[in-house]
C-alpha cells in the first residue's frame, strides 16, 4: 500500500500516522521537512511551492512503490505542500512502516531523496531583504546570461538529477 498526495492546506504529520499502522510492522520511521529561516546565506521569511500536479502525483506514487519494492516496507506515505508557506510550516511529510527498523530507515531516506530530485515541484523563496528567487533556477538563468568565457559550466553548474 502506498499513498502520495499534494496538499494546498497546512497539515500535521500526526494526523497521517494512523495510515501506517499495520500489525505486521515493528518499525515506523517518519521525516518532516520544515520551512527554515535561512538558505545559502540569505534570511528567508517564507516560500511558495508550485507543482505540475498530474505528473507530480504520478511520479510520487512511483517513488513510494519503488521504496516498498526495493526495501520491503509494508506501508509508505508522502504528502507535499503546495502554495504559500510560513517559517516552521510542514513542507513535506514522509512515513513508512516495516517489519524491522533498518528497512524503514532506509526506505524513508530513499523517498525524501527521490522526492527532492524527481518531482516536478518548484520552490520560490522570499527573503527578508525583499528579494525572491526560484531555488536551483536563478543561477542557471544567470549563467545563460553571462557565459563563462573559458570552459563553460552551463550544465555543470547545477547538478539536479533527473534520472532515477
Amino acid at each position, binding site marked *: 500500500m502506498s499513498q502520495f498526495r499534494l496538499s494546498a492546506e497546512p497539515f500535521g504529520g500526526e494526523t497521517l500516522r494512523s495510515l501506517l499502522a499495520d500489525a505486521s510492522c515493528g518499525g515506523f520511521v517518519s521525516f518532516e*521537512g520544515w520551512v527554515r529561516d535561512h538558505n545559502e546565506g540569505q534570511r528567508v521569511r517564507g516560500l511558495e*511551492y*508550485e*507543482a*505540475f500536479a*498530474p*505528473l*507530480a502525483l*504520478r*511520479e510520487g506514487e512511483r517513488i513510494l512503490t519503488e521504496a516498498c519494492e526495493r526495501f520491503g516496507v509494508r506501508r509508505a506515505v508522502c504528502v*507535499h505542500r503546495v502554495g504559500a508557506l510560513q517559517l516552521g510550516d510542514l*513542507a*513535506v511529510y514522509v512515513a513508512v512502516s516495516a517489519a524491522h527498523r533498518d528497512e524503514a530507515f532506509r526506505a524513508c531516506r530513499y523517498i*525524501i531523496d527521490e*522526492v*527532492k*530530485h*524527481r*518531482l*516536478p*515541484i*518548484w*520552490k*520560490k523563496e522570499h527573503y527578508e531583504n525583499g528579494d525572491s528567487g*526560484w*531555488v*536551483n*533556477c*536563478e543561477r*542557471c*538563468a544567470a549563467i*545563460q*546570461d553571462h*557565459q563563462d*568565457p*573559458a*570552459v*563553460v*559550466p*552551463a*550544465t555543470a553548474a*547545477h547538478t*539536479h538529477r*533527473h534520472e532515477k
Partner: protein
Amino acid sequence: MSAPLQGLVLAGGHSRRMARDKAALEYAGRSQLERAMALLAPLVSKSYVSVRSDQLADPSRAAYACIVDLQPDLGPISGIHAALHAAPDCAWLVLACDLPFLDSATLQQLIAERAPQKMATAFLSDFDGKPEPVCAIYEPSARGAVDAWIASGQRCPRALLAQSDVKLLQARAGGTLANINTSEEYLQARAQLAPARATAAARGVRVQYFAILREQAGRAEEALETSAQTALELYQELRARHGLKLAPEQLRVAINEEFGEWTQPIHGGDTIVFLPPVAGG
C-alpha cells in the same frame, strides 16, 4: 569502456569565401548553428560551440556553452585542439557549421560505428575519398596527435586523419555531408531545404509554464500553432519568442503529463510542459 561523448560545433571560422558568418545562415527559418546544436543535443552528454575569443559577445553563440580557441586562426583544428584540452577525458563529436544537409541518421551511424580504441572515427568524403574531419569523433588519444600536428606547423585535420589510426566509414548516400562555401551554394541549399519544411504541417499544441518559466513567459499556458517536429524544436521556438533564459539542457520535458524525450515527435493536441530544475522537499 569508451570515453563519454561530447559535441562540438565549429563556429570559430572567418567565413571568408562566404563573406558573412556561416553560423548565422538560415535554412527554413533556423540558423545553421541552431540546426547543428539541435542535431547534437540528443546524441551527446553536452554540446558546445567552438569560438574565437572575439566571438564570445556574439549573442547567437553566447546562447550556448562555448569553448574558446587556445591557438586561434589555424582553421578547424583550432577548435578540435581546444576541445580536446578542455575535457581531456572526453571524446568529441565534431561538426562543421556549414553542413546544411546533415541529418540525425548520419550522426547516429557515426556514433554506432565509433571505434574508441582508434584515434578517431570518420566518414570518407564522397567528394574526394579522403577522411571527413568535420563530421567525426575524436577520442581522447587524439589530443597528443593534434598537439604534435600543430607543433610541426601543420594545419589540415584531413591530412592528420589520413595518416593516423582512424576508423573510416564509407561515405553516406544522399550528400548529407555536402558543405557550402559560397553564396551561390548557400542559395541552392536553402532552396532545397525550404520545401521540405514548408510541407511540414503546422499543428496545434498546448504549452504550460511553471515557476521561473511561467514568470519569464508571462503566462501559465498558451495554445499555439507550430511547425516544430520535436519538443526541442518547440522549446527553441518558444525560447526565442518569449526570451526564456534557461537552456534546454537545464530542463526536462513532459508530454501529455508524462516525462518525455527532447527528440520525441510532437503531435497536434499534445500538451507540453518544460520542467525547470526542480526543488521539492
